[in-house]
Protein backbone atom coordinates (compact mmCIF):
# COMPACT_ATOMS: atom_id res chain seq x y z
CA UNK A 1 0.00 0.00 0.00
CA UNK A 2 1.24 3.48 -0.85
CA UNK A 3 1.37 6.39 1.58
CA UNK A 4 -1.87 8.44 1.81
CA UNK A 5 0.07 11.70 2.02
CA UNK A 6 2.73 11.60 -0.67
CA UNK A 7 1.47 8.62 -2.65
CA UNK A 8 5.08 7.71 -3.45
CA UNK A 9 6.53 5.54 -0.72
CA UNK A 10 5.32 2.31 0.81
CA UNK A 11 3.10 3.01 3.84
CA UNK A 12 4.47 1.40 6.97
CA UNK A 13 2.81 3.50 9.68
CA UNK A 14 -0.86 2.70 10.21
CA UNK A 15 -3.06 4.89 12.37
CA UNK A 16 -6.60 4.38 13.57
CA UNK A 17 -8.41 7.37 15.05
CA UNK A 18 -11.71 7.07 16.86
CA UNK A 19 -13.20 10.50 17.46
CA UNK A 20 -16.73 10.67 18.84
CA UNK A 21 -17.29 7.10 17.72
CA UNK A 22 -16.25 7.85 14.14
CA UNK A 23 -13.38 5.71 12.95
CA UNK A 24 -10.81 6.96 10.44
CA UNK A 25 -7.74 5.16 9.21
CA UNK A 26 -4.59 6.58 7.70
CA UNK A 27 -1.57 4.87 6.24
CA UNK A 28 1.65 6.84 6.01
CA UNK A 29 5.24 6.28 5.00
CA UNK A 30 7.91 6.90 7.59
CA UNK A 31 8.81 10.33 6.24
CA UNK A 32 5.27 11.68 6.13
CA UNK A 33 4.59 10.21 9.57
CA UNK A 34 7.57 12.17 10.89
CA UNK A 35 6.21 15.35 9.37
CA UNK A 36 2.86 14.70 11.02
CA UNK A 37 4.15 14.26 14.55
CA UNK A 38 1.06 15.98 15.93
CA UNK A 39 -1.01 12.93 15.04
CA UNK A 40 0.88 11.05 17.70
CA UNK A 41 0.55 13.82 20.20
CA UNK A 42 -3.07 14.92 20.35
CA UNK A 43 -2.56 16.36 23.84
CA UNK A 44 -0.87 19.43 22.53
CA UNK A 45 0.50 20.98 25.69
CA UNK A 46 1.36 24.58 26.40
CA UNK A 47 5.04 23.66 26.42
CA UNK A 48 4.90 21.97 23.04
CA UNK A 49 3.06 24.96 21.72
CA UNK A 50 5.68 27.28 23.10
CA UNK A 51 8.61 25.51 21.49
CA UNK A 52 6.64 25.41 18.24
CA UNK A 53 6.23 29.19 18.46
CA UNK A 54 9.92 29.61 19.06
CA UNK A 55 10.61 27.75 15.87
CA UNK A 56 8.15 29.76 13.83
CA UNK A 57 8.85 33.22 15.19
CA UNK A 58 12.26 33.55 13.70
CA UNK A 59 11.95 31.86 10.39
CA UNK A 60 12.14 35.11 8.45
CA UNK A 61 14.96 36.57 10.47
CA UNK A 62 18.50 35.36 10.42
CA UNK A 63 20.60 35.65 13.51
CA UNK A 64 24.29 35.06 13.78
CA UNK A 65 24.91 31.80 15.56
CA UNK A 66 25.00 33.01 19.14
CA UNK A 67 27.31 31.80 21.81
CA UNK A 68 25.67 29.63 24.40
CA UNK A 69 24.70 30.80 27.87
CA UNK A 70 27.86 31.86 29.67
CA UNK A 71 26.83 29.99 32.79
CA UNK A 72 25.44 26.63 31.65
CA UNK A 73 26.43 26.51 27.96
CA UNK A 74 22.83 26.15 26.72
CA UNK A 75 22.57 27.39 23.14
CA UNK A 76 19.55 29.17 21.70
CA UNK A 77 19.13 26.30 19.23
CA UNK A 78 18.94 23.87 22.10
CA UNK A 79 16.46 26.06 23.94
CA UNK A 80 14.36 26.25 20.79
CA UNK A 81 13.96 22.50 20.63
CA UNK A 82 13.30 21.88 24.33
CA UNK A 83 11.47 25.11 25.19
CA UNK A 84 13.23 25.04 28.55
CA UNK A 85 16.08 27.09 29.97
CA UNK A 86 19.19 25.46 31.38
CA UNK A 87 19.75 27.91 34.22
CA UNK A 88 18.50 31.25 35.49
CA UNK A 89 21.14 33.14 33.49
CA UNK A 90 19.97 31.81 30.11
CA UNK A 91 17.37 34.58 30.23
CA UNK A 92 20.08 37.24 30.10
CA UNK A 93 21.94 35.43 27.35
CA UNK A 94 18.90 35.25 25.03
CA UNK A 95 16.87 38.20 26.28
CA UNK A 96 16.81 40.19 23.03
CA UNK A 97 15.28 37.32 21.10
CA UNK A 98 13.19 36.03 23.93
CA UNK A 99 11.21 39.09 24.83
CA UNK A 100 8.98 39.17 21.74
CA UNK A 101 8.28 35.45 22.11
CA UNK A 102 7.48 35.79 25.78
CA UNK A 103 5.21 38.69 25.00
CA UNK A 104 3.38 36.73 22.35
CA UNK A 105 2.78 33.78 24.62
CA UNK A 106 2.14 35.59 27.91
CA UNK A 107 0.57 38.72 26.48
CA UNK A 108 2.93 40.86 28.57
CA UNK A 109 6.65 41.29 28.97
CA UNK A 110 6.91 42.95 32.34
CA UNK A 111 6.49 41.45 35.79
CA UNK A 112 4.23 43.44 38.10
CA UNK A 113 3.68 40.88 40.84
CA UNK A 114 5.52 39.95 43.99
CA UNK A 115 9.11 41.09 44.47
CA UNK A 116 11.16 38.88 46.81
CA UNK A 117 11.79 40.62 50.12
CA UNK A 118 15.56 40.23 50.38
CA UNK A 119 16.53 40.44 46.69
CA UNK A 120 13.87 43.09 46.20
CA UNK A 121 15.03 45.67 48.77
CA UNK A 122 17.56 47.42 46.55
CA UNK A 123 15.40 46.75 43.50
CA UNK A 124 12.47 48.62 44.96
CA UNK A 125 14.71 51.67 45.60
CA UNK A 126 15.95 51.38 42.04
CA UNK A 127 12.36 51.35 40.76
CA UNK A 128 11.59 54.48 42.77
CA UNK A 129 14.66 56.24 41.34
CA UNK A 130 13.58 55.39 37.81
CA UNK A 131 10.11 56.72 38.43
CA UNK A 132 11.47 59.99 39.90
CA UNK A 133 13.92 60.45 37.03
CA UNK A 134 10.99 60.20 34.65
CA UNK A 135 9.09 62.82 36.62
CA UNK A 136 12.19 65.02 36.62
CA UNK A 137 12.43 64.86 32.83
CA UNK A 138 8.79 65.90 32.53
CA UNK A 139 9.25 68.73 35.03
CA UNK A 140 12.23 70.10 33.09
CA UNK A 141 10.29 69.90 29.82
CA UNK A 142 7.49 71.91 31.41
CA UNK A 143 10.09 74.33 32.78
CA UNK A 144 8.93 73.73 36.35
CA UNK A 145 12.37 74.20 37.83
CA UNK A 146 11.27 74.39 41.45
CA UNK A 147 9.66 70.94 41.23
CA UNK A 148 12.66 69.67 39.28
CA UNK A 149 14.99 70.75 42.06
CA UNK A 150 12.84 68.93 44.62
CA UNK A 151 12.87 65.79 42.54
CA UNK A 152 16.62 66.04 42.02
CA UNK A 153 17.11 66.15 45.80
CA UNK A 154 14.85 63.13 46.29
CA UNK A 155 16.77 61.17 43.68
CA UNK A 156 20.02 62.14 45.36
CA UNK A 157 18.68 60.86 48.71
CA UNK A 158 17.63 57.54 47.20
CA UNK A 159 20.90 57.10 45.31
CA UNK A 160 22.71 57.66 48.58
CA UNK A 161 20.46 55.12 50.34
CA UNK A 162 21.12 52.61 47.58
CA UNK A 163 24.87 53.19 47.86
CA UNK A 164 24.75 52.67 51.63
CA UNK A 165 22.84 49.42 51.26
CA UNK A 166 25.35 48.10 48.78
CA UNK A 167 28.14 49.16 51.11
CA UNK A 168 26.56 47.28 54.02
CA UNK A 169 26.36 44.14 51.92
Amino acid at each position, binding site marked *: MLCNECGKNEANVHLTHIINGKKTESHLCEECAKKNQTIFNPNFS*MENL*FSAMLNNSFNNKTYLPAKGCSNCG*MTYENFRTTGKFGCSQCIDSFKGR*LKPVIKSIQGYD*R*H*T*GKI*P*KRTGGAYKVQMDIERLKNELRCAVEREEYELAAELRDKIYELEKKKGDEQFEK
Partner: protein
Amino acid sequence: MSSLKNNDIVITSRIRLARNLKNYKFPIYMTESESKSVINEIYNAISKHENYKLTYMKDLSDVKKNSLIENHIISPALANKRNEGAFLLSPDGKTSVMINEEDHIRIQTIEDGLSLKECWKLSNEVDDIIEESVDYAFDRELGYITACPTNIGTGMRASVMLHLPALSITNQIDKLLYGVSQLGVAVRGVYGEGTKSIGHLYQISNQGTLGASEETLIDKINQIVMQIIDKEKNTREHLMKNNYDDLEDDFYRAYGLLTNARKMTVDEAMKLLSLIKLGSEMGITPMVKGKNIYQLMIWIQPNNISTIDTELSPKDRDKKRAEIIRRELLR
Protein backbone atom coordinates in the same frame (compact mmCIF):
# COMPACT_ATOMS: atom_id res chain seq x y z
CA MET B 1 -32.02 23.14 46.00
CA SER B 2 -31.61 26.27 48.07
CA SER B 3 -29.32 24.39 50.44
CA LEU B 4 -26.79 23.94 47.65
CA LYS B 5 -23.47 25.36 48.76
CA ASN B 6 -20.77 26.55 46.41
CA ASN B 7 -18.57 23.98 48.11
CA ASP B 8 -20.58 21.23 46.47
CA ILE B 9 -19.45 22.43 43.06
CA VAL B 10 -16.00 23.73 43.92
CA ILE B 11 -14.11 20.78 45.36
CA THR B 12 -10.69 22.26 46.09
CA SER B 13 -8.55 25.30 45.34
CA ARG B 14 -4.83 25.15 44.75
CA ILE B 15 -2.00 27.66 44.44
CA ARG B 16 1.35 26.63 43.04
CA LEU B 17 4.44 28.83 43.03
CA ALA B 18 7.49 27.99 40.92
CA ARG B 19 10.82 29.25 42.24
CA ASN B 20 14.47 28.62 41.39
CA LEU B 21 17.78 29.12 43.09
CA LYS B 22 20.11 31.56 41.40
CA ASN B 23 23.32 29.62 41.80
CA TYR B 24 22.32 26.24 40.42
CA LYS B 25 21.48 25.01 36.94
CA PHE B 26 17.89 23.95 36.49
CA PRO B 27 17.02 20.41 37.66
CA ILE B 28 17.29 18.62 34.31
CA TYR B 29 20.92 19.74 34.01
CA MET B 30 22.01 19.20 37.60
CA THR B 31 24.39 16.56 38.83
CA GLU B 32 23.28 14.28 41.63
CA SER B 33 25.41 16.07 44.19
CA GLU B 34 24.02 19.46 43.13
CA SER B 35 20.51 18.06 43.47
CA LYS B 36 21.30 16.89 46.98
CA SER B 37 22.65 20.24 47.98
CA VAL B 38 19.54 22.01 46.61
CA ILE B 39 17.37 19.66 48.68
CA ASN B 40 19.47 20.40 51.76
CA GLU B 41 19.39 24.17 51.27
CA ILE B 42 15.62 24.23 50.96
CA TYR B 43 15.04 21.78 53.79
CA ASN B 44 17.31 23.80 56.09
CA ALA B 45 15.63 27.07 55.08
CA ILE B 46 12.16 25.79 55.96
CA SER B 47 13.27 23.96 59.08
CA LYS B 48 14.28 27.26 60.69
CA HIS B 49 10.59 28.12 61.02
CA GLU B 50 8.42 25.14 60.23
CA ASN B 51 8.31 21.45 60.96
CA TYR B 52 7.92 19.98 57.46
CA LYS B 53 8.60 16.31 56.76
CA LEU B 54 11.21 15.57 54.10
CA THR B 55 10.74 12.56 51.80
CA TYR B 56 13.14 11.51 49.03
CA MET B 57 11.62 10.09 45.87
CA LYS B 58 14.21 7.31 45.86
CA ASP B 59 12.78 5.95 49.12
CA LEU B 60 9.30 5.46 47.70
CA SER B 61 7.82 2.51 45.83
CA ASP B 62 6.02 3.18 42.55
CA VAL B 63 2.67 2.42 44.16
CA LYS B 64 3.35 4.89 46.97
CA LYS B 65 4.45 7.58 44.49
CA ASN B 66 1.36 7.13 42.36
CA SER B 67 -0.82 7.18 45.44
CA LEU B 68 0.73 10.56 46.36
CA ILE B 69 -0.14 11.77 42.86
CA GLU B 70 -3.71 10.55 43.26
CA ASN B 71 -3.89 12.50 46.51
CA HIS B 72 -2.52 15.59 44.72
CA ILE B 73 0.46 15.89 47.06
CA ILE B 74 3.07 15.50 44.32
CA SER B 75 2.99 15.87 40.54
CA PRO B 76 3.55 13.10 37.98
CA ALA B 77 6.72 14.95 36.89
CA LEU B 78 8.21 14.67 40.36
CA ALA B 79 7.33 10.99 40.57
CA ASN B 80 9.42 10.38 37.44
CA LYS B 81 12.49 11.78 39.17
CA ARG B 82 14.66 9.20 40.86
CA ASN B 83 17.58 10.15 43.01
CA GLU B 84 17.33 13.88 42.64
CA GLY B 85 13.70 14.54 43.63
CA ALA B 86 12.20 15.11 47.05
CA PHE B 87 9.27 16.85 48.72
CA LEU B 88 8.45 18.52 52.00
CA LEU B 89 5.00 18.19 53.53
CA SER B 90 3.49 20.50 56.14
CA PRO B 91 2.12 18.89 59.33
CA ASP B 92 -1.47 19.65 58.27
CA GLY B 93 -0.85 18.12 54.82
CA LYS B 94 -2.13 21.23 53.03
CA THR B 95 1.18 22.60 51.81
CA SER B 96 3.83 20.65 49.99
CA VAL B 97 7.14 21.84 48.59
CA MET B 98 8.36 19.76 45.66
CA ILE B 99 12.09 19.95 45.15
CA ASN B 100 13.87 19.44 41.82
CA GLU B 101 10.78 18.85 39.73
CA GLU B 102 10.93 21.02 36.58
CA ASP B 103 11.95 23.92 38.83
CA HIS B 104 14.04 23.75 41.98
CA ILE B 105 11.04 24.67 44.09
CA ARG B 106 7.31 24.18 43.61
CA ILE B 107 5.30 25.36 46.58
CA GLN B 108 1.75 24.08 46.56
CA THR B 109 -1.17 24.71 48.89
CA ILE B 110 -4.54 23.00 48.60
CA GLU B 111 -7.67 23.94 50.54
CA ASP B 112 -11.28 22.82 50.34
CA GLY B 113 -13.84 24.93 48.51
CA LEU B 114 -13.24 28.20 46.73
CA SER B 115 -10.29 29.47 48.73
CA LEU B 116 -7.57 30.67 46.38
CA LYS B 117 -6.86 33.73 48.54
CA GLU B 118 -6.23 31.61 51.61
CA CYS B 119 -4.01 29.27 49.58
CA TRP B 120 -2.05 32.23 48.23
CA LYS B 121 -1.54 33.57 51.75
CA LEU B 122 -0.14 30.24 52.96
CA SER B 123 2.07 29.65 49.90
CA ASN B 124 3.30 33.22 50.07
CA GLU B 125 4.38 32.77 53.69
CA VAL B 126 6.32 29.61 52.90
CA ASP B 127 7.88 31.42 49.94
CA ASP B 128 9.05 34.25 52.23
CA ILE B 129 10.50 31.76 54.71
CA ILE B 130 12.53 30.01 52.02
CA GLU B 131 13.69 33.30 50.51
CA GLU B 132 15.13 34.40 53.85
CA SER B 133 17.85 31.78 53.48
CA VAL B 134 18.34 31.13 49.76
CA ASP B 135 19.01 33.32 46.71
CA TYR B 136 16.13 33.20 44.27
CA ALA B 137 16.51 33.65 40.53
CA PHE B 138 14.62 36.90 39.97
CA ASP B 139 14.75 39.28 37.04
CA ARG B 140 13.63 42.88 37.35
CA GLU B 141 11.67 42.80 34.12
CA LEU B 142 10.57 39.20 33.91
CA GLY B 143 10.02 38.40 37.57
CA TYR B 144 10.70 34.93 38.94
CA ILE B 145 12.73 32.93 36.45
CA THR B 146 11.43 29.45 35.72
CA ALA B 147 12.72 26.56 33.62
CA CYS B 148 9.80 26.94 31.24
CA PRO B 149 8.92 30.43 29.96
CA THR B 150 5.21 29.61 30.36
CA ASN B 151 5.62 29.95 34.14
CA ILE B 152 7.80 33.05 34.20
CA GLY B 153 6.81 36.20 36.13
CA THR B 154 4.74 35.35 39.16
CA GLY B 155 5.48 31.64 38.74
CA MET B 156 1.97 31.20 40.02
CA ARG B 157 -0.69 28.79 38.86
CA ALA B 158 -4.03 29.22 40.61
CA SER B 159 -6.41 26.36 39.96
CA VAL B 160 -9.83 25.36 41.09
CA MET B 161 -11.27 21.86 40.86
CA LEU B 162 -14.90 21.85 39.86
CA HIS B 163 -17.51 19.10 39.79
CA LEU B 164 -19.82 19.91 36.89
CA PRO B 165 -22.13 16.94 36.37
CA ALA B 166 -25.25 18.85 35.29
CA LEU B 167 -23.37 20.78 32.59
CA SER B 168 -21.75 17.51 31.49
CA ILE B 169 -24.87 15.37 31.21
CA THR B 170 -26.68 18.12 29.31
CA ASN B 171 -23.76 18.34 26.85
CA GLN B 172 -23.09 22.01 27.56
CA ILE B 173 -19.67 21.47 29.03
CA ASP B 174 -17.56 21.52 25.86
CA LYS B 175 -19.07 24.79 24.71
CA LEU B 176 -18.64 26.36 28.11
CA LEU B 177 -15.07 25.22 28.51
CA TYR B 178 -14.22 26.44 25.03
CA GLY B 179 -15.68 29.83 25.94
CA VAL B 180 -13.69 29.90 29.14
CA SER B 181 -10.47 29.05 27.31
CA GLN B 182 -10.97 32.20 25.24
CA LEU B 183 -10.59 34.22 28.43
CA GLY B 184 -6.98 33.19 29.00
CA VAL B 185 -7.91 30.37 31.30
CA ALA B 186 -6.79 26.77 30.94
CA VAL B 187 -9.03 23.77 31.48
CA ARG B 188 -7.36 20.52 32.47
CA GLY B 189 -8.27 17.07 33.70
CA VAL B 190 -8.10 16.11 37.34
CA TYR B 191 -4.45 15.10 37.37
CA GLY B 192 -3.03 18.11 35.54
CA GLU B 193 -1.92 18.84 32.04
CA GLY B 194 -2.76 16.23 29.44
CA THR B 195 -4.97 14.16 31.71
CA LYS B 196 -8.58 13.40 30.87
CA SER B 197 -11.57 14.48 32.86
CA ILE B 198 -13.01 11.72 35.01
CA GLY B 199 -16.11 11.84 37.17
CA HIS B 200 -17.12 15.20 35.64
CA LEU B 201 -14.25 16.87 37.46
CA TYR B 202 -12.46 19.78 35.80
CA GLN B 203 -9.55 22.01 36.75
CA ILE B 204 -9.67 25.68 35.78
CA SER B 205 -6.44 27.66 36.02
CA ASN B 206 -4.72 30.82 34.82
CA GLN B 207 -2.86 30.46 31.53
CA GLY B 208 -0.61 33.51 31.76
CA THR B 209 1.75 34.12 34.68
CA LEU B 210 3.34 37.42 33.67
CA GLY B 211 2.15 41.03 33.60
CA ALA B 212 -0.45 40.86 36.37
CA SER B 213 -0.10 40.69 40.12
CA GLU B 214 -0.91 37.49 41.98
CA GLU B 215 -4.06 39.08 43.43
CA THR B 216 -5.29 40.13 39.98
CA LEU B 217 -4.76 36.64 38.57
CA ILE B 218 -6.65 35.12 41.50
CA ASP B 219 -9.53 37.60 41.16
CA LYS B 220 -9.89 36.70 37.52
CA ILE B 221 -10.08 32.96 38.21
CA ASN B 222 -12.54 33.60 41.04
CA GLN B 223 -14.80 35.63 38.77
CA ILE B 224 -14.79 32.99 36.05
CA VAL B 225 -15.41 30.21 38.56
CA MET B 226 -18.37 32.10 40.04
CA GLN B 227 -19.90 32.30 36.59
CA ILE B 228 -19.41 28.60 35.95
CA ILE B 229 -20.97 27.83 39.35
CA ASP B 230 -23.97 29.93 38.34
CA LYS B 231 -24.36 28.02 35.07
CA GLU B 232 -24.11 24.67 36.84
CA LYS B 233 -26.68 25.75 39.44
CA ASN B 234 -29.10 26.98 36.79
CA THR B 235 -28.77 23.76 34.86
CA ARG B 236 -29.44 21.75 38.02
CA GLU B 237 -32.58 23.78 38.64
CA HIS B 238 -33.69 23.26 35.06
CA LEU B 239 -33.11 19.50 35.31
CA MET B 240 -35.02 19.39 38.58
CA LYS B 241 -38.03 21.06 36.99
CA ASN B 242 -38.06 19.26 33.66
CA ASN B 243 -36.35 15.90 34.06
CA TYR B 244 -37.05 14.88 37.63
CA ASP B 245 -38.28 11.36 36.84
CA ASP B 246 -35.31 10.49 34.64
CA LEU B 247 -32.86 11.94 37.11
CA GLU B 248 -34.37 10.13 40.07
CA ASP B 249 -34.18 6.88 38.13
CA ASP B 250 -30.55 7.53 37.10
CA PHE B 251 -29.51 8.35 40.66
CA TYR B 252 -31.17 5.31 42.21
CA ARG B 253 -29.73 3.04 39.52
CA ALA B 254 -26.28 4.44 40.19
CA TYR B 255 -26.79 3.95 43.92
CA GLY B 256 -28.05 0.43 43.33
CA LEU B 257 -24.98 -0.50 41.30
CA LEU B 258 -22.55 1.13 43.70
CA THR B 259 -24.02 -0.60 46.74
CA ASN B 260 -24.37 -4.01 45.12
CA ALA B 261 -21.72 -4.52 42.48
CA ARG B 262 -18.94 -6.97 43.31
CA LYS B 263 -16.47 -5.68 40.71
CA MET B 264 -16.02 -2.13 39.48
CA THR B 265 -13.51 -0.38 37.21
CA VAL B 266 -12.31 3.07 38.13
CA ASP B 267 -14.07 4.67 35.14
CA GLU B 268 -17.43 3.17 35.99
CA ALA B 269 -17.06 4.01 39.66
CA MET B 270 -16.15 7.64 38.94
CA LYS B 271 -19.14 8.07 36.65
CA LEU B 272 -21.58 6.57 39.14
CA LEU B 273 -20.13 8.37 42.14
CA SER B 274 -20.41 11.65 40.25
CA LEU B 275 -24.12 10.90 39.71
CA ILE B 276 -24.90 10.11 43.34
CA LYS B 277 -22.95 13.18 44.45
CA LEU B 278 -25.21 15.24 42.21
CA GLY B 279 -28.27 13.34 43.46
CA SER B 280 -27.35 14.03 47.05
CA GLU B 281 -26.74 17.73 46.40
CA MET B 282 -30.09 18.00 44.64
CA GLY B 283 -31.78 16.29 47.57
CA ILE B 284 -32.95 13.34 45.49
CA THR B 285 -30.83 10.58 47.06
CA PRO B 286 -30.92 11.46 50.78
CA MET B 287 -29.11 8.26 51.84
CA VAL B 288 -25.84 9.66 50.47
CA LYS B 289 -26.14 12.93 52.40
CA GLY B 290 -23.21 13.82 54.62
CA LYS B 291 -20.84 11.41 52.92
CA ASN B 292 -17.66 12.77 51.36
CA ILE B 293 -18.05 11.39 47.85
CA TYR B 294 -15.03 13.27 46.51
CA GLN B 295 -12.81 11.64 49.15
CA LEU B 296 -14.22 8.28 48.09
CA MET B 297 -13.41 9.13 44.45
CA ILE B 298 -9.78 9.58 45.50
CA TRP B 299 -9.61 6.44 47.63
CA ILE B 300 -10.74 4.22 44.79
CA GLN B 301 -8.01 5.34 42.37
CA PRO B 302 -5.89 2.34 41.31
CA ASN B 303 -2.75 3.10 43.28
CA ASN B 304 -4.56 4.18 46.41
CA ILE B 305 -6.22 0.77 46.43
CA SER B 306 -2.87 -0.89 45.84
CA THR B 307 -1.40 0.82 48.89
CA ILE B 308 -3.90 -1.15 51.00
CA ASP B 309 -2.74 -4.42 49.49
CA THR B 310 0.24 -4.36 47.16
CA GLU B 311 -0.32 -7.90 45.89
CA LEU B 312 -3.55 -7.08 44.05
CA SER B 313 -3.92 -7.78 40.33
CA PRO B 314 -6.08 -5.36 38.31
CA LYS B 315 -9.01 -7.80 38.56
CA ASP B 316 -8.67 -8.13 42.31
CA ARG B 317 -8.40 -4.36 42.48
CA ASP B 318 -11.81 -4.01 40.84
CA LYS B 319 -13.20 -6.35 43.50
CA LYS B 320 -11.51 -4.42 46.28
CA ARG B 321 -12.83 -1.14 44.81
CA ALA B 322 -16.40 -2.44 44.80
CA GLU B 323 -15.93 -3.61 48.38
CA ILE B 324 -14.65 -0.21 49.56
CA ILE B 325 -17.50 1.62 47.86
CA ARG B 326 -20.14 -0.69 49.39
CA ARG B 327 -18.58 -0.36 52.82
CA GLU B 328 -18.40 3.46 52.67
CA LEU B 329 -21.86 4.01 51.21
CA LEU B 330 -23.67 1.57 53.47
CA ARG B 331 -21.91 2.60 56.65
